[in-house]
């Protein structure tokens, strides 16, 4: 986070570098069930982010000693392809990827009914094919769809989006340049129906008041993304096996 006066991130009309308003999301595209071998999968394009998520499980815990007697172990790997960023990234997991794997897991676990599957594992894999700021949020949104696609019972879907600050203004959904040149980034994951936060991180500089604004902006955006997730799930089930679109509904009713 650095405030670089040479770069103008908001123009005279109050529009951002990519033409968005301050509270506007980037274009988002979601697709469910696109992999053959995974039990569930989803693909998301959020701005220029391109991310695949897949779920395997519930399956037998391996090695056995990691199993828990009263619930499934949820495992999560967030990983970036070497070609996903400007400078080639080593495929070995970085400290950043290890941290994100943890907070993403913790953002999804509250929504998963892991108590239904003692001694099993539910494995979530997120592969960032192209990164453009906000990969953890887009990854959570996609992983949530992949979990639903795998038929894992969930209390509800999880949707995620960041807010932040550039040139003194609170804005929604930072792009790469806004993340690098801006003043704050606040990724948030929401369980929209319960209106509870399962991931929140921040870096940069925000006053108490700015923080409250940014939090409201991001939770509102999560609710919009949640609607898109529902559409994506419906679309998949319309196409793939007509008549079964109420599967996700069921999962929610159970919750």
């Amino acid at each position, binding site marked *: 986070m650095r405030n670089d006066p040479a770069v103008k991130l908001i123009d005279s009309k109050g529009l951002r570098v990519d033409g968005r308003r301050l509270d506007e999301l980037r274009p988002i595209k979601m697709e469910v069930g696109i992999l053959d071998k995974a039990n569930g999968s989803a693909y998301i394009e959020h701005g220029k982010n391109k991310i695949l998520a897949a779920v395997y499980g519930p399956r037998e815990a391996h090695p056995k000693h990691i199993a828990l007697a009263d619930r499934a172990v949820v495992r999560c790997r967030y990983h970036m392809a070497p070609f996903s960023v400007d400078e080639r990234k080593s495929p070995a997991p970085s400290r950043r990827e290890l941290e994100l794997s943890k907070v993403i897991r913790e953002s999804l*676990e509250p929504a998963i009914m*892991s108590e239904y599957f003692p001694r099993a594992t539910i494995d979530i894999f997120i592969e960032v094919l192209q990164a453009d700021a906000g990969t953890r949020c887009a990854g959570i949104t996609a992983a949530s769809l992949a979990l639903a696609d795998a038929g894992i019972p969930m209390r509800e879907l999880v949707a995620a989006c960041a807010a932040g600050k550039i040139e003194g203004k609170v804005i929604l959904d930072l792009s790469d340049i806004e993340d690098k040149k801006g003043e704050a980034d606040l990724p948030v994951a929401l369980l929209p129906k319960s209106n509870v936060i399962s991931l*929140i991180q921040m*870096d940069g500089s925000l006053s108490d008041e700015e*923080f409250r604004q940014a939090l409201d902006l991001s939770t509102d955006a999560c609710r919009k993304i949640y609607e898109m997730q529902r559409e994506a799930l419906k679309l998949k089930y319309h196409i793939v096996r007509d008549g079964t679109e109420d599967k996700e509904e069921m999962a929610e009713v159970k919750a």
Partner: protein
Amino acid sequence: MSATQQFSPVAKLEQKTVVDLILKGKRVDERGPLDYRPLTIMLGTVEKANGSAYVYLGKTKVLAGIKVETGTPFPDTPDEGILTVNSEFVPLASPTFEAGPPNENSIELARVVDRGIRESKAIDLKKLCIDPGKKVFMVFVDVYVLDHDGNLIDAAAMAALGALVSAKMRAFEVHNGELKYKDEKIPLPMLNYPVPTTSVKIDGTIVLDPCLEEEQVMSCRLTVTTDKDDKVCAMQKGGLGVFTPDEVKQIVSTSISKSRDLREKILSKVK
């Protein structure tokens, strides 16, 4: 891969005791919900380090040491020194810590401490440039957890801050990119003093500065790091539970005021 953690089994009865107290507005160690445990800071205990601080937060003990060395800058910040924060959960500190490379909890702690220092611009890294693109000073902050009785992030960040503000490096001049040391010692170029406070939610109630017994029954935690100007500079939620947006806002406001006291306490230690 990150995996749901196996907690060491805590007797149900013991868990119930902790929760029952919380629900009555009390705590196992007789504090109020928003009270911090007694904090003691000893500076300069490791003379071979450029700076060091030993923090006792209740029974939690953390030692941080600073080493200043020279190295090559990152290509995207050729005129800035390098800050590296590393954390070791040495197996001295807890029956649950194992020897080996840092696990995800240790990495998360180091990255949250790092974020507070970096995002508050606590160190003036431009002043640590020797020869742009070629040679800069590297500031290593090594956090050593020695006794784990809960709330390691706050203890570690305060030890790191204490070590940084009391650190001395050799004074230097640069002539045509050539580094020359002088005889006297100077402090690090510090611009800000980030302090985190961590709150946890236990059965719907928010309490500050959890001890280990409380962490074992918590639903989730939220760490908020604020700077000398009351700005929030870093946040991190942990754990398998959830917060309402109002709870988060309340925790942020509380953290801002609580950090002021802690910051003052740390800075008062430095002459």
